[in-house]
């Protein structure tokens, strides 16, 4: 999706402004959004790519004006509705019309399980014997594609040539898993020279590395 979330290379946002002695959260409502989102997600009604894509579908003008946790809140409401956890009416009234179905209640994250869930994390690697399309050292070009759904291929790399630096192994493919599909494939660290991406004004020494899947890449003549 060519959304405003795909920010790499944009101008006009001004300097980066670090805050001294920044707290982990600035407001109690931010803590709640973080925890509500994590706990709801742990039920397994959506995966990480669905969650990211929910944030990305916030209307662009709103997305740009929103803070990080406002985006999370908007995405959480969207996920709860789309995945059928709550109804529109419940969201509007803030009152439950029906308890969670019994089969879902068993999947609710309980306090005693939190530490274990944090330690276990997710598993995005796929233990499946799938051939790699590229070897380390191969010259590749990122495809010039513009999928309207979820994708993790930033616009600034599309059509640009790079070199495979590392094969991370077989991973779930976000474009598919964001819509509940499965298309596991090799994931690579691909090095792009800064000048290939940004032209001659960039430093001749610098490079940007992106993690890209087989379906984002074609073979290329060396850059």
């Amino acid at each position: 999706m060519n959304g405003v979330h795909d920010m790499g290379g944009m101008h006009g946002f001004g300097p980066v402004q670090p805050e001294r002695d920044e707290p982990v959260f600035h407001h109690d409502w931010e803590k709640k959004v973080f925890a509500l989102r994590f706990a709801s997600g742990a039920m397994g009604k959506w995966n990480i790519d669905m969650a990211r894509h929910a944030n990305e579908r916030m209307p662009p003008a709103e997305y740009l004006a929103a803070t990080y946790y406002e985006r999370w809140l908007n995405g959480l409401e969207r996920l709860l509705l789309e995945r059928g956890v709550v109804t529109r009416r419940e969201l509007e009234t803030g009152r439950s019309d029906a308890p969670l179905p019994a089969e879902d209640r068993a999947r609710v994250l309980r306090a005693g399980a939190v530490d274990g869930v944090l330690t276990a994390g997710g598993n995005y690697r796929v233990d499946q014997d799938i051939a790699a399309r590229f070897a380390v050292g191969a010259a590749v070009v990122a495809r010039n594609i513009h999928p309207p759904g979820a994708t993790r291929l930033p616009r600034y790399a599309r059509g640009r040539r790079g070199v495979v630096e590392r094969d991370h192994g077989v991973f779930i493919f976000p474009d598919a898993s964001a819509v509940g599909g499965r298309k596991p494939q090799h994931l690579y660290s691909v090095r792009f020279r800064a000048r290939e991406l940004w032209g001659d004004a960039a430093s001749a020494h610098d490079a940007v590395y992106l993690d890209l899947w087989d379906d984002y890449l074609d073979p290329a003549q060396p850059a």
Partner: protein
Amino acid sequence: MSRSDHDHEHDHAHPAGSRFSEVEVRVKALESLLVDKGVVDPAALDRLIDSYEHRIGPRNGARVVARAWTDPAYRQRLQRDATAAVAELGYGGAQGEHMVVVENSARVHNLVVCTLCSCYPWPVLGLPPVWYKSNAYRARAVVDPRGVLRDFGLELAGDVEVRVWDSTAEIRYLVLPERPAGTEGLSEAQLAELVTRDAMIGVARAGPAPGGKP
């Protein structure tokens, strides 16, 4: 940068007569719905918040860095399989399932960003600071990394190679900063004190040594 990039500065509209802002009201309504419906356990929410406020933060990553500075065999394991090496110190899990450590040197400087959202290695650094999630950082880190580093007061020589790591997948990156000069006599715990969050993202150097020049 727009003021809205800084949520601590962000003024939320307060509906007339309410001491709560609109977003606070919305979050309270959502929380009470999800608790009432049985989707979330309030005690689990508290445990999650407490974990990231008090248990999981950049002191974890600092221990990894200090160990790598003092133990060459550990440093090798970190290069070969960072996920396993980080787990040796007891860290891992959510948003750090697949770790890669990138090393700074006199020749190479690494910088980590996520241009598409705000991916960040939680088990070793905790939750990301506001600036890391800001539109400004996400936009500029890839196109103008040296300018971003100048925003942090770090000026790199022209012949240093800047490597920017855009976290577009589930691989999470931790920068291993250079060990500051003059720290030969320090213990691993003392060294860990010199390792800041910013140094492990790549927008600062570690150190300096106590009493040393910055």
